[in-house]
């Protein structure tokens, strides 16, 4: 059929482990079931291996609709509860423009322009706003 449009991926998306970080690369068009499966696979892998970060590279994804947007946001929230941080990397400009127009700004989602930048972001120590408040209480 069309040139340059990757075949849909059925089943599992490979999850690669690089030290303390899981790397997932989404390509082309996903079935809804594949996206749900990935969400589950990631949570299980984090819980089993105790990784501290997840990078989801979506540079090969041509559209993010509200379903996939919700899966990404939920995945980020789940990993947060499992003591890991998720960064979505490589969103195409056309996808970002469309998501905002759709009304889906995904405020809780951490993003980076490239996978490399996402890895650097995860290597930085976590700064929480709460620590500032606690310092004021101490004499």
């Amino acid at each position, binding site marked *: 059929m*069309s040139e340059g449009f990757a075949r849909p991926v059925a089943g599992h998306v490979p999850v690669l482990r690089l030290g303390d970080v899981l790397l997932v690369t989404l390509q082309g068009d996903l079935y809804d079931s594949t996206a749900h499966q990935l969400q589950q696979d990631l949570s299980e892998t984090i819980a089993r291996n105790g990784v501290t970060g997840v990078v989801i590279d979506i540079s090969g994804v041509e*559209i*993010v609709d509200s*379903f996939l947007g919700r899966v990404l946001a939920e995945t980020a929230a789940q990993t947060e509860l499992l003591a890991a941080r998720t960064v979505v990397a490589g969103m195409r400009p056309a996808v970002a423009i469309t998501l905002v127009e*759709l009304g*889906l700004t995904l405020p809780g989602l951490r993003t980076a322009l490239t996978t490399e930048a996402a890895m650097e972001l995860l290597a930085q120590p976590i700064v929480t706003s709460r620590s500032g408040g606690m310092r004021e209480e101490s004499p």
Partner: protein
Amino acid sequence: MPTAAGVEARLPIRSDMDLVWVRQHVRQAAAQLGFGLVDQTKLVTAASELARNTLVHGGGGLMEASHVTTGGADGLRLAFSDSGPGIPDLDRALSDGYTSGGGLGMGLGGARRLVHDFEVESVPGSGTTVRVTSWVTRPPRQREDV
């Protein structure tokens, strides 16, 4: 010059696999008609939202794609129809944040913002048809005499 072949289609929407075919067809048809990358992305995203509504709320249905023209401009029209329960309160269904299907509630209202023309016909008890059209916007032509 775009031709009808490759644009005109009737695609069933019965499973999440059909959603993939709908997206692929719309992408291909939009590219063939000369839509730019951002407009292609908007159209495919709108089609994905509407096809998912057809599947989830309408219990399945079909999408018809057609090439339309007006005053020399090319457009792509997509009609999503189902014979599901219909939409009882259309104004509410079009407002952001409203959902009855466990989604984010961006489907109908969000899709409307991504296309140029949008119309919904819904009869409670007998089904819903959503028709959207987007037009190829071309950069203004250079004047030849200057």
